[in-house]
């Protein structure tokens, strides 16, 4: 298998030339190829937004659902069939506005899925409004005088929620993004990757050129040290860490649930109701 085996040959990506999403498409397909996961065993679920068109361009099982609701959908898939590799892929508007509570609670439950967010600080598909991660001062269609709202911090939020794998990557560094993706998929539990993914059309202020000199690779951090990870989560500006902030092992929801721990639900027998079962109601 190579990365092209994971791509839908009928449908080429429709993103703007230079869009960060191309890097994620490459990283996901390269990671799956490297991990030798059969395309039939992969589900990529998305919400609504530019980035969420991703499943259309893949030759895996895909589901392009509702804005903000990709994470519960993905959890449903995983709970139905824990043998599948489930990747939820969406945008920052999608995941950090409408999907916030789903993100929080699914991370808290430690459902074994990978959640990758293409974070460009704006709404792209709806033509350039400020998103929850928009920095103070960002001028967009909805913030003509500059954004005044404190930006959402995805890394700190994921850590607070109890995600067991928390990372940041950058679309301008595909090799690193791919490596992080491989680690995230391999991680057993809820893996979160926030990808700084410049929007070349609607966010001219936060471009590849802006981020490239500022990002640096996390290398010698202790990924099991929560306090250190939390501190790093607030490092932003001239120095922006990318890499794995936090990674620990904790039983997944599927490991702990009385029914799910007996194996993939889809392979479990359906209960046949008998007269004996009705005796309970006598």
């Amino acid at each position: 298998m190579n990365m092209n085996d994971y791509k839908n040959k009928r449908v080429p990506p429709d993103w703007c030339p230079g869009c960060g999403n191309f890097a994620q498409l490459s990283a996901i397909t390269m990671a799956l190829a490297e991990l030798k996961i059969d395309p039939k065993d992969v589900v990529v679920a998305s919400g609504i937004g530019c980035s969420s068109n991703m499943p259309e361009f893949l030759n895996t099982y895909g589901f392009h659902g509702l804005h903000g609701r990709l994470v519960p959908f993905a959890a449903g898939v995983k709970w139905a069939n824990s043998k599948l590799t489930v990747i939820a892929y969406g945008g920052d508007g999608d995941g950090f506005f409408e999907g916030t509570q789903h993100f929080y609670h699914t991370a808290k439950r430690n459902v074994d899925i990978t959640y990758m967010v293409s974070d460009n600080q704006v709404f792209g598909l709806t033509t350039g409004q400020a998103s929850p991660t928009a920095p103070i001062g960002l001028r967009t269609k909805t913030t003509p005088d500059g954004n005044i709202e404190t930006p959402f911090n995805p890394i700190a939020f994921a850590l607070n929620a109890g995600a067991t794998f928390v990372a940041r990557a950058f679309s301008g560094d595909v090799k690193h993004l791919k490596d992080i993706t491989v680690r995230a998929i391999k991680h057993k539990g809820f893996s979160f990757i926030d990808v700084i993914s410049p929007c070349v059309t609607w966010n001219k202020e936060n471009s590849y050129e802006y981020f490239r000199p500022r990002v640096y690779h996390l290398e010698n951090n202790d990924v099991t040290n929560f306090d250190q990870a939390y501190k790093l989560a607030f490092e932003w500006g001239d120095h922006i860490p990318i890499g794995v902030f936090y990674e620990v092992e904790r039983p997944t929801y599927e490991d702990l649930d009385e029914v799910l721990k007996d194996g993939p639900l889809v392979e479990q027998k359906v209960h046949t109701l008998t007269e004996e079962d009705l005796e309970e109601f006598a």
Partner: protein
Amino acid sequence: MTIMRQNEVIIRVAGAAGDGVQSAGEILVRTFARSGLYATSYNYYQDIIRGGESWYQVRASDVKVKNQGDGLDILVALNQDGVERHTNPDINEGGASPLGKDGIAIFDNSIKGYTKRDTNYCPMPLADIAAKYSKNTLLKNTVGLGAAIAASGIDFNIFADVIRDQFGKKGDIAELNVKAAKEGYDYFLANYKPLGKKFKFGKKKYMISGGMAVALGAVAGGLKMYVAYPMTPASSALHFLAQHAKKYGVFVKIPEDEISAINTVIGANYAGVRAMTGSSGGGFALMTEAVGLSGMTEVPLVIYEAQRPGPSTGLPTKTEQGDLNQVLGASQGDFPRIVFAPGDIEEAFYLTREAMNIAEKYQTPVFIMSDLYLAEHYDTIDSFDLNFTIDHGLRAKDNEQDYKRYLITETGISPRAIPGQPGNMHNEDSDEHNEYGDVVSDAVTNPQDRIRMMQKRMRKMDTYIEEMKPTPTYHIEDAEYVIIQWGSTKGAVEEAVDILRSKGIKIGAIEVKNVFPLNPDIGTLLKNKKKIIAVENNYSGQLSKYISAQFLVKPDLITKYDGEAFYPNALADEIEVRIGKKKEVIRE
């Protein structure tokens, strides 16, 4: 005028919330069921955990009882308020009659001032007897129940066994309760006269609530996952499934909200597992967008919608059928949907089970619409017919050549492929798509594909209509007048028909079990009638309007939106007025 029958008893336990009214009522239902009688019940309670008045009515007979009835034989009042409310002829509790002539009122002898009226007041030392056995004041309920069992002529030993089961492992406490109950039983017989009821006891029955029947029907239909956020009155199904998760192999989860619940079960159904969600109107409102997601992506979905009176929080512990417009209108655009409304416990079981197959066959959302009355009241059944075959519908073969998830077919149904299946990788999309599932909405909008896909999806409704079973009817053959009814009003409507027929009025009823799509045979059933009357537990006659539009008829409308269920005699009176056989009845 309510006629009391020799082979029927109606008992009401009344007290404050927290007095153990509900559990006392349930003990009675179980005792009747085990005695081989049919029983049904009605829990009148308020949205508070303690205080406030509440009562539980049980109606039992050796023939099937279809509703809680509007008479009363025996009152067990746990406080003075209970005695006053239910024996004062000037008070009409939610339509239920107070205790009438020859009725028996059992209450503690510390409650004074009740001697005369046309009722047999039977004060008893309930608290004193209870105090001999336990400090727990709730024990006086058991003493009162013992007296009620004596008054109705039921075998004490069956009642004793029910008490023992109720306390399960707490053997000593169970025996104390049995002894206290026996003293109540004996005291009553030594001091008062029983009602002299005559029952033909049959085979023991099963006792089950509508919510439990929905849950069991789903399990029988292959349910493997139930994800729902708590909301009365849908929660009885959730609780039952949570308690039986391991036994039935059903994964049960309360997520962060209803939006999560429905998207999670869509994910599970997409991945090949039968999954279901449930809520009441307020919670269902949050699910609305995802209903259309199921319709568009053609992922099977079963939703249990248990109604309570709205708008907004409304009357959380009361009953109504006011969500039909909401369910029919949920989500933008046109897409196929199927809505069932079971009329009783049996139908709740069979229709939910069938819904599991129908959803997968037609790959679209299917609703089970219930209400608080049906969901929460206990009823008895002889058994369920457990023969059933799970049919997964049209599935793709492995490694199909040029697999098209949304293949255009005559029936509108396309072969599904499930993740994990070799070779059939594809995308399912909330955007409009072509046969492959590739999006046609963005860069290359293709009107022809759009039209073809809309027609394909909607064609599933035509296919479904062809397989619909005839609309159930009740004494329709020679009927000059016909009642249209849907959902839990079935029992009251059928009994009203019986009452009116006994007066020589040729009346019948049709039960609209399929509220969407409507069965075309309804048009024929409504032809050439002197009058059509729709009976609905809502303000505006939601089904009636919709039937009027489809079949060009103009039903007269009897509605009730006080939060209570219909009572059969009151309903019969009102119908008589509407068909001009009786002058208007003045009611409180």
